């Protein structure tokens, strides 16, 4: 027996959107960590998703209906993500969930969306090795971020790699890929180090860096540790003259928390930067700043959060219904002119074609793009297109 009052309460208080009960709205779930350690990254993504929802509503909604976001807090805890996903699907009966950041949160939601035949759009680059029929992956697969970055580094920066990551799934798996790739290319792995999540003392790591003298550090540290690492690296007097750090989890938002002064000259690999020069982006950045303040910055996961809402909306329009199976089918091949360049949903694995971009950090905290893939790269979460990776994806 469903209690209707409860449902109304849930939606009514969320995000300040007044709901007129009835058939002419579509409820969508927005599930990110608003508290706990992941809040610092995820709140901005939520903001971008809400922005997209507003835009769609302003343009007349989806199928003529307004979208009503139901916002939930995943509290940086995977079981909470799983609980709230179940709540959104069972209780609020949302048409789709936009949410998650860490792989742990995605893995927690995965069985829930599968069992309830729901839809999840996930906005963050991740380690691959997954393709659930109920999830659309708007972030980069490894071949859209890591692999091209390593190729570029080998060509431009040197062959002595130091792999540094936080001790969890994404860095471990990313580094396996990198190691295979290095071996394939005859490059050298000088050291591989992991630090616990939230680690803040990098003295010892820096000593190791000094000893092993890499030309490249491939950095898969998680948010907060990046701050400590880069500050301490700079204090130790190690500059871009000595080596280059390539990061895959440092975007504009993180740069502000680290301080551009210590990052200048280091690199990152993403599919989007605030400085990416497309007409869609100029508008997106302007709208985002207008909505949330001039001092805010955009970044890759923010952009992914933004465009994936639009992708879903287009898929619903194409399907003519919010029914999950119909939307899933209709989504294949859907394209959208995202701020980071055109994106397209892949039919094989429900990931997204994206342009790969390598950027150098500037003194103002923005990126200067030094390379891009030209066209959108096909996602390959299992790295099936790379022989050298066969040992990793082997079942």
């Amino acid at each position: 027996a469903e209690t209707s009052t409860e449902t109304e309460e849930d939606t009514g208080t969320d995000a300040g959107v007044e709901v007129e009960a009835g058939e002419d709205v579509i409820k969508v779930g927005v599930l990110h960590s608003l508290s706990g350690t992941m809040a610092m990254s995820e709140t901005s993504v939520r903001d971008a998703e809400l922005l997209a929802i507003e835009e769609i509503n302003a343009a007349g909604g989806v199928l003529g209906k307004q979208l009503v976001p139901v916002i939930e807090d995943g509290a940086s805890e995977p079981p909470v993500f799983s609980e709230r996903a179940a709540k959104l699907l069972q209780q609020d009966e949302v048409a789709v969930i936009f949410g998650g950041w860490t792989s742990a949160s995605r893995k927690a939601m995965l069985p829930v969306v599968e069992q309830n035949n729901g839809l999840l759009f996930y906005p963050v680059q991740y380690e691959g090795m997954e393709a659930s029929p109920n999830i659309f992956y708007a972030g980069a697969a490894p071949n859209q971020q890591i692999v091209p970055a390593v190729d570029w580094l080998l060509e431009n920066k040197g062959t002595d790699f130091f792999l540094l990551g936080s001790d969890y799934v994404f860095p471990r798996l990313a580094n396996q890929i990198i190691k295979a790739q290095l071996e394939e290319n005859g490059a050298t792995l000088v050291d591989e180090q992991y630090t616990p999540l939230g680690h803040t003392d990098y003295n010892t790591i820096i000593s190791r860096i000094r000893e092993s003298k890499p030309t490249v550090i491939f950095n898969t540290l998680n948010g907060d540790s990046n701050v400590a690492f880069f500050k301490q690296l700079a204090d130790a007097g190690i500059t871009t003259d000595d080596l280059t750090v390539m990061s895959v989890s440092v975007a504009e938002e993180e740069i502000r928390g680290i301080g551009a002064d210590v990052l200048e000259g280091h690199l990152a690999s993403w599919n989007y930067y605030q400085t990416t020069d497309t007409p869609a982006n100029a508008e997106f950045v302007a709208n985002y700043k207008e909505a949330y303040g001039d001092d805010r910055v955009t970044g890759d996961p923010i952009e992914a959060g933004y465009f994936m809402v639009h992708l879903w909306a287009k898929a619903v329009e194409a399907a003519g219904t919010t029914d999950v199976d119909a939307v899933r089918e209709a989504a294949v091949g859907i394209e959208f002119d995202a701020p980071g360049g055109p994106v397209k949903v892949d039919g094989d694995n429900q990931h997204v074609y994206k342009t790969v971009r390598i950027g150098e950090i500037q003194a103002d905290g923005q990126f200067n793009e030094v390379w891009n893939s030209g066209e959108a790269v096909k996602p390959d979460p299992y790295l099936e297109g790379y022989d050298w990776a066969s040992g990793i994806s082997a079942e």
Partner: protein
Amino acid sequence: MQTISARLLERKWLFVALIIILLILPFFISDFRTNLLGRYIAFAILVIGLDLLWGYTGVLSLGHGIFFGLGAYIMAMHLSMESMTGAVPDFMTWNGITELPWFWAIFSNPISAIIGAIMVPMIIASILSFFIFRNRIRDVYFTILTQALVLVTTTLIVSQQSFTGGTNGITGFSTIFGYSLSSPATQKGLYYISVGSLIVVFLICSILVNSRFGKTLIAIRDGENRLRFSGYDTSMFKVLIFSLSAGIAGLAGMLFVMQVGIISPTMIGIIPSIEMILWVAIGGRGTLIGPVIGAILTNSAKTFFSESYPDFWLYFLGLVFVIIVIFLPGGLMSLVDKVKRRGGKHEKRKEPTDRKETSHSAVG
């Protein structure tokens, strides 16, 4: 003269009332809510053990997340073996492990998983606590140490991800002992199993605390050294009660994972471990029933606030903790006692919570 309402506030009647409510509630709320309630019941089981340890024996553990986690992980390992398609779970494949490690294999049998989920925490707790208590590490030293233990354990779990699933935890189960996890009937069944476990654990612990053994626990809390000079080897009592509470935590973890479908390190870390203690405090330590109510109410409130006010719920939660601890040191149960006293019964009762927790007892 004792009025009916006063009688209802007796602890045992309170418990009976609670159980009746828990038994019939699923007929009135959605499956989703029932499932949530089932999780809270798992927590309620856990806090009974914590209350034995803290409320009665005065040993504050901020490390029960570990034992909860052990039970949960063992059951999760079993469920994930039940559901896996290949020879090993996915995450092992990525880490280049092709054969099930022995400590996984032994839990592939459901019976051994259930026994393991309870016994492994007990055994580990008894070994650990034997060394800690034997050397008279106590009070805040013990408490801080347990907190550090949590940190180490989660760090270990995360860093040994090829065996443990790392930060992702273990998830993705489809069946449980052959029943489909997504079926509402299975979920209801698990709910009632949880209620049943709550009853059994509660009764056993009630009998325990009302026996001479229970008095010994209180004596340890209030004057451990004095008790030693009365001929008791208090450290062994503490080892026993610590292990028992760890076993209960393991059981709770097992029930939790069956209903939630995931266990990951964040669930057993420092903050969840502290929250468990808060449930005890909010309900009223040293009363058994209080913590049970505290766990269910606090978690319901937490869910309610965080669903309704995702941006503000931490303020609520923080304030509730502060206010309860300051103004209601005996927890919700002291409120019940107050009402009861007004209800006509002027019995003088002990309130263990207003005692001063001086670190030096008279003979220390």
